């Protein structure tokens, strides 16, 4: 599964994208796995209420199932316009 990071999430984790092998059933489970890895992930995911997630380029929720998903992206609230 491709996992992408944008804006300060990318900066805290230190990379824009990586391939993650996971059996996580939901976004929240994936976050828990990442947080358990290293401190920089913990820093990025400290407050998931301050984050947004997109599954295969569609905005989604942290409770959403990951079954069939190929690309997960984490980022702060958008500031377009």
């Amino acid at each position, binding site marked *: 599964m491709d996992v992408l990071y944008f*804006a*300060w999430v990318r900066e805290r984790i230190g990379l824009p994208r990586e391939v993650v092998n996971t059996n996580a059933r939901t976004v929240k489970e994936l976050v828990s796995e990442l947080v358990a890895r290293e401190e920089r992930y913990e820093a990025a995911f400290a407050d998931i209420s301050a984050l947004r997630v*997109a599954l295969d380029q569609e905005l989604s929720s942290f409770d959403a199932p990951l079954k069939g998903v190929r690309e997960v*992206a984490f980022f*702060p*609230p*958008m*500031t*377009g*316009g």
Partner: protein
Amino acid sequence: MDVRVQESAFDLGVETSEFAAKTSASGAVVTFTGIVRNNAAGTLEHMQIEHYPAMTQKALEAISNEALTRWQLEDAKVIHRFGALKPGEMIMMVATAAPHRKDAFEAAEFLMDYLKSRAPFWKKEVSSDDASWVAAKEEDEAALGRWQE
């Protein structure tokens, strides 16, 4: 419908004229243009705009289609830039054309409210002594409430 995500500058005058010329059945054309403002101290070097390429075009097209469905519009245009933009440079524009002005205005405001909070762009202000990500505003999130049915 015309949706473009690009690093290069666009010519507001040319884009607006072309858009208006195409929309012969419409009496009303509204445009909105977003411009990089300097910070209070006047030290902004540039605004760095990051986006999520695989998602951006899709998201902007979905928002534009939603506007075309909800209002009696003849056409809509969205251009949004990314990269490093200096104070005074244009970040983005939307244009709407409709038979009646109320539809053109409302659809343009709807597009802007959704672009602000739902299109995958992030802005970082880079000044001579600091660089910080622009925080999303509560009022921008609240503005979406107006369009919920």
